[in-house]
């Protein structure tokens, strides 16, 4: 529990139900959660230098803006891990996401324990080289 306390996470999902549930789960662990259902707002949030995120969790296929875009943005921030949680998975997509630098790839539905486990690993990982 301790390791998640006060960590800041950006959650991106265009499905409001899924977004609400993820925000609840993470907030209950004491994380500072910023939820974004409009993927276009991601750019603004990420560019907002005031608010530094420790982690991004994003869906992969959304209207206007894709998780690939988030990955591309995040790759400019080498210390920012990205976890993909998507309904549009598959071995090919997974391989591509990991190649683009995603920390982990999960397919919906995920259980709470599974999600928290991956989040902990992402936050505990050694910072990757720029």
């Amino acid at each position: 529990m301790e390791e998640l306390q006060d960590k800041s996470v950006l959650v991106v999902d265009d499905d409001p139900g899924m977004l609400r549930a993820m925000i609840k789960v993470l907030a209950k662990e004491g994380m500072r959660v910023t939820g974004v259902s409009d993927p276009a707002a991601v750019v603004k949030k990420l560019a907002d230098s005031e608010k530094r995120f420790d982690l991004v969790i994003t869906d992969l296929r959304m209207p206007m803006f894709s998780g690939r875009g988030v990955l591309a943005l995040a790759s400019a921030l080498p210390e920012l891990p990205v976890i993909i949680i998507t309904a549009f998975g598959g071995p090919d997509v997974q391989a591509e996401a990991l190649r683009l630098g995603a920390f982990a790839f999960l397919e919906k539905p995920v259980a709470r324990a599974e999600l928290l486990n991956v989040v902990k690993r992402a936050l505990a990982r050694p910072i990757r080289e720029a």
Partner: protein
Amino acid sequence: MAVALTIALGVVDYLTGREWAISAFYLLPTCLAAWMAGRRVGLLVGALCAGVWFLSDVFSGPAYQHPLIPVWNAIMLFVFFFVVVWLLVAFRNSHYHLEQTVECRTAALRAEIEERKRLEQANVQAERLAVVGSMAAQVAHEVRNPLGSISLNIDLIGQELHAFANSNGHSAAECQVLLREMRSQVLRIRQVVQEYLRFARMPKSERVEVSLNRFLEEKLNFMQPLLEQKHVNLRSTLDPNLPPVYVDAEQLWEAFLNLIRNALDAMPDGGNLTVSAQRNGAEALVSISDNGRGMSQDEARNLFVPFFTTKNDGTGLGLAYVQRVINEHGGRIDCATARGKGSTFSIQLPLAVGA
């Protein structure tokens, strides 16, 4: 028959003493023998004719000026027969060859037509599967988002319940049981969705040369504990000299595994599972048999149709997936089954080029 004819002609020749008039008729048995039985027999009968003709000439022919004239005549007759037999057999052979060629080409053409028909059917099936697949994928994806939210919310409720029960001193055990039940149902939906998606988004196969017998032996070894647990006795006859096939090993094993699982489901009280791999012409023939409950002819007909299932909890995509994998590898799959006796699935896969 030719010999009998020759002797009959000889007798007539001898009795009538008209050897010159009748000598042409000796050609008849010679030609007959050559046509029916080939060059060697034709020449033998020709020699026999010349001999009979010679004897009849000596015993009943006219008095020749020189005693060697009948011998000379007989030799000339034989030479004549020799030429006739030679030409006749040459003609017969070319005729026979032509007939054979025509027959051969007709057979090849017929096979080609069959193959085209099969490919056409496979194409229709593939198109149908593609439509079904994209629909299934769409539905599966639509289901996954709400399912993701449901799954996390169940966990949140569990957490709340736990905290509530702790603070109140009430037992929430019954509610936790209900939540567990909900979780297991979510898992079930998740599995079904995954099966749909696996079918819909079959990745492009990555093929390498695989030695089927070694591959099957290895994989079947891993299955041994499960088979023992199900009281199933495995008999495998894998031909060690089977040339390799060019396949995506993972996909192929997934297909075989589906068939083996079906076989186990068909034998709930245990039984015999037979797996064999051998060469069949330019193809490898793998067969997977069980002696379980088998299927009716009606069931067997619809076996590979997507969404058709005989199980209570099946999606009906297992065998459709298997068929798809096998077809994409250029092979084919058939099923022989009888109620109460068991089922045999036969898979034919082309051998790797150069094998």
